[in-house]
């Protein structure tokens, strides 16, 4: 499956059902990421250590979560089952 994802970026080597199942996995990953955001793993009350590149804890963890959402979106547009449907 993973090799399909890797070779499928930007190409059409995956069939429709593979694309559908990977897209569903991405939706699940986005939901999990959304849930994790509101746990002490990302937003511990009153804690700002450890810092990363001098950024307080919640800021850098929040930055990583946001980047992960963008990364998921980037993967999603490449394997989306409806990709190419409305090209004009």
């Amino acid at each position, binding site marked *: 499956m993973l090799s399909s994802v890797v070779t499928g970026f930007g190409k059409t080597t995956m069939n429709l059902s593979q694309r559908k199942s990977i897209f569903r996995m991405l*939706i699940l990953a*986005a939901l999990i990421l*959304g849930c994790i*955001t*509101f746990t002490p793993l*990302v*937003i*511990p*009350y*009153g*804690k*700002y250590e450890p*810092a990363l*590149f*001098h*950024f*307080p*804890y*919640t*800021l850098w963890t*929040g*930055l990583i*979560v*946001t*980047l*992960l*959402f*963008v990364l*998921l*979106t*980037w993967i*999603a*547009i490449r394997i*989306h089952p*409806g*990709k*190419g*449907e*409305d*090209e*004009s």
Partner: protein
Amino acid sequence: MITWLIILGSLFILALLVASVRSYHKKRTLDEFMLAGFNIGPVIGVLTFAAALFSAFIFMGMPDMFRTDGVGAWIFLAVSDGGMVFLIIWFGYHIRKKVKTTGFRGVSGFLTGLYEHKLPGYLFFITAFLFLVPYAAIQIRGISIFFSATFEGALPEWSWAIIIVGIMLVYAEIGGFRAIVFSDAIQGTVLLVVIWLIGITCICSFGSVESLFTAVERVKPSLLSVPGPNGLFTVQFLIASFIAIVLIPVTQPQLTTRVVVIRNFRSLGRMAVSLGIFAIVIILSTVFIGMYGAVNYTDASTADFLAGALLFDQKEIVGALAMVGLFAACLSTTNAQIFALGTELRSMMKGSDKTILRNTRIGLFIFAIIALVFSTVMSDELALLARTSFTGTSMMAPVVLLAVLTKEKPHLSVLFFSASGLAILLLSLFHILPQEIGRFRIDFLLYLYLAAGTAGVLVWRSVMKNH
């Protein structure tokens, strides 16, 4: 600074004029005027989406939120925007697929067609009106207060508001949606450049990012974690905000329209990813401006902080560019919202194109005047008012999602949940109902109510179908 302001301001107005004139064609169709002929590319798409979404709220509201409530503001907006760009792909695909079979003139008309009933369209339009007009008004007010404070005595506060609305109406009425999209692109670029110039100045004044955060730790360490010094960023507040913001492309018509009019799905995808990066870059700069304010303007009022940090602590040219940027930001969101109301109104009208166009233009004028009048009675809490607008329109999410996602005609019963949710929210905003029940925020509870109600409608429909 005045000289720079005149030069840069003139260039900006000239750019708006060019955008309007280039978009004007005598023989254009109604769809070209209202929806830019469904042909917006990814670059212009991301800039218009960003300009319509961020605006004065990001320029003035977010630095102030970081200054007073701390780094939890990143979770409030940036993480939520991250979730939103993912939703654009999922929702964008489905609505564009549906639009291919039904056509699209505006969300209200789209809903009326899918439900085969006028109620959903009216409910959506009323909600948009109730929550977009005050949001547009607060931006007009924010910018007019800012300008009248900066040019003390030059013009009365209300005249700045009239100037903004006047310019907005002129280029929207001449150029239509295409002119708005092009001007959004100009404004989005100005916003990005200005906000980073100011952010860099704020970092440089402390020497480094490390020194900036060390200074904040010394002054008010509670700003560096949630829930912040005022206890705003609770888990419930952040979850409710996340839902409200993620649903923006579904329920704020000016942004739903932009999802639909993008040229094709590939362009939509590029737009979504670019928007996510744009959001990270732009919000990151407001962190530095806010932290700068936390140290240098600890107890100052919002107006004093913004005037100082955005204008008077900057080099003259940057201060002048900031003024133009603020003006542009206010203009872009306000006209996106007012024009969206016009589009919604148009989507429910019947008659010849000429009559609809005339009535829509009259509608645009009336909406702008209402926003102008409202702007004289609004409060100054930009970021929180923006959130209220997102929360209010998000009550319509079940109505829109059900219409877009179900293959058969959606059942009207879902309207009950959205309408009652909207009524409860309004009553709590006017303090007739409490804003918290037990330990739970009312908006948080309303999302649970809407989710349960929508699930109930789906299960009931499925059971009835099997019988």
